[in-house]
């Protein structure tokens, strides 16, 4: 059972890291737009639709 004295503090450290990561994400606008990203995935023929694109997104497609 002694292992819990190591594992539980470890889990707390992980939690603190998770919170820190989340705060960072919030600060970097990741949670400001929750509506449009859902539509991006539906956009299959992106290459056709943006011939003159400079948007970095299109380079993936």
């Amino acid at each position, binding site marked *: 059972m002694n292992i819990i*004295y190591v594992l539980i503090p470890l889990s707390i450290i992980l939690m603190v890291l998770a*919170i820190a990561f989340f705060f960072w994400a919030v600060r970097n*606008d990741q949670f400001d737009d929750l509506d449009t990203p859902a539509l991006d995935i539906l956009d299959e023929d992106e290459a056709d639709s943006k011939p*003159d694109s400079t948007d970095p997104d299109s380079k993936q497609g």
Partner: protein
Amino acid sequence: MTQTDRHEHGGCWHCGEAIPAGVEIQADIGGRARAMCCHGCQTVATLIDSAGLTRYYDFRDALPERPEGAAEASARDFLAWDRPAVREHYGHADCDGLLRLSLVLENVHCAACAWLIQRFVGSLDGVAELRVDVADGRAHLRFDSERTPLSEIAARLATLGYRPHLDSPEAGVARNQSERRQMLKYIVVAGLGMMQVMSFALSKYIGAWQGLDAQTERFFVLISMVVAVPVCLYAGQIFYTSAWRTLRQGRMGMDVPVAAAMLLALFSSVFITLFGQGDVYFDSVVMFIFFLLLGRYAVLVARQNAGQLQSALARSLPVQARRLTEGGSEMVALIELAAGDRLQVSAGETVPADGVIESGTVMVDESLLSGESIPRRRSAGERVLAGSLVRDGQMTLAIENLGQATVLSGIVRLLDQARTFKPRMARMADHLASWFVAFVLTGAAVAGMVWWQIDPSRSLPVVLAVLVVSCPCALALGTPVALAAAARGFARLGVLISRPDTLELLPKISHVVLDKTGTLTRPDMRVAEVRVVDGIDDDRARLLAGRLERVSRHPVATAFARFDDGAAIDQAEVVTAAGVAGRQHGVDYRLGKPAFVAEWLGEVPVEPGDGQWIALASRAQLLAWFRVDSPLRDGAHELIAELKAAGLTVWLASGDRSENVDAVARELGIEHTRAACSPADKLELVRSLQAAGKRVAMVGDGINDAPVLAGADVSLALSEGADIARTQADLVITGKDLSRVSAAFGLAPRVRRIVRQNLAWAFSYNITALPFAAAGFVPPWLAAIGMSASSLLVVLNGQRLARQQRPRKTATGAHPIEPMPSRPAAST
């Protein structure tokens, strides 16, 4: 005259409006011809198709507004936005030398709008980033103004129908955003903390069963404390500060028992952990905070989405002005103007500032300010006001007052004052809540003291259970959650709600005051009757009138626009405040007021009947009469009939002349009318009805109605009207169909029913649970679960209002706002 037939097929492919009879416009969308209601829709739809973005039609779940004006917006309309003053005032350069700037967009309804804007405008050269916030209709841009000027971006947005406005750097938006972000942080901290603490608590409970040694148990308690204390102190902040704030003002807020329960449970648990014996409640406290935060977040988002008071003033002013300089003229942005500047304003433009005409004669439409629908003549030496539209002519204007000093902005302020009168309901709820809170606190104290006598070790759990179980959050959530859901349901109906709490009032309304111009009638005019006098037949008279009126921008000209076949007219000219003149096949014609043709005929011809008559004449003789009027909107008859059937008293109040008002009232069967009302008169009417104990709903549009709208118990505005009314009314009816007004009245009782169910449940739950908790039957963890379950139930019940609305629409015969039939993605 054929009326529009709104029951005809599915309506416009783009905007969903009914297609007027006789209009046969089509656009090729995704390889198939689709019917369009107007050239504006055709332009936008073709544009979307040619950019390969037809999937917009699959994605959208709200219909767009019908684009105003068929012409594509050009960068010239926004030229002044490229000036350095605009860049400095509204934007700021970031480290890459790119310009950051926000625009407020009109008509952004759903995620599909944001998607369309991002694809269409985001693909412009030099646009590094474009983010559209659907909730508040703002576009956040980061772009290279050397490669793509702002004017071009603005023109693209306007062409799509999302007219942009410069966003004055205001604190409100940033505050909303930081509030939302802060709440998210609290929730995640509380959520993660809850998982941890619950797992420790669970291990401890299971361990107690299986025989956990004392040292390990102590470890679990200590580690719970280490996690719970910072989590509670951080994530519970809003409750502590809010409770402290109300206490300091000598009041009892909802948050007082909440904060008391949290802090009491937390610190007593810490005390027990460090010095004493007994149960600890770290898990209950963290769970309590987490669930409360979830509820608060839902309310916060609903409130922020509902109450966007966008810069109303900026929206009713033009984007740029032509300033006269010594050498000529230049287009400048409004922020560059100063008192004393001289401006040139021409037909079709909006006056940007209050001022005096130096030269020129114009017809100005001041319907935004006074409600008078007929343009007035203004000439040198007279004043014109910001926000009025120049229909005809051209003038040089010397600026007297700008921005906040204008009459327009005075009206906006009047409006703000009227709004502050309103929240009677809110005050009452607060008042009740403070009594309830005082009752709960006393109850908890009494229960604690009684138990101290019986069994001191059970005193604390009982106090906590009482505080937690009677948490008035279900009571507090019941109404806002239902109203927020109702707002979403109404939005699908084409009714936007900016102040959800007014939905509660809607079923109690006894009187409805309707505005005429632009509300019951359409803003454009039509030819109602043609009377041929001599030497010409009906069709030729119409054709000739259509050709002659082509040059005019007067509202009357809209009545004739459909007869214009495009044939050439020589020497066409507009005679301000009189009519139009032109020559065809060697014959001179005049079309206009009787007095105007009288100059040729030598005598003023007698109008053949009531109403507004336009005369057509050659030099030799009078040819024909046209009676023009503003047609009633679709659904006007049904609206009045349904309102009367619902037992409501209908008033018609208008700034228009009494013969026009009476004619409309007669046609619709409205008994109570008041004509020639100034905004103050209308407000007086509403106030006198209210003083007689009636609850009054006002349906109107235009800024002149805005103070009245704010003074009424419930206000409804039609979005086709001036934008300012859109943001100020409680309920905004989109589109042009008045049947949505009656739909709103029809649905409101359902909202009230659900709100009542919620309140009844929350109240009876609290009342029944309280004695059990005080009697010691409810441990604190069960109280926390019960409280959360009660809140959840209330939230789920409220959500029902967001659904089940669609079938109603067909019942009211109204609207093709149903989701577009899904179609194959056959764009290529």
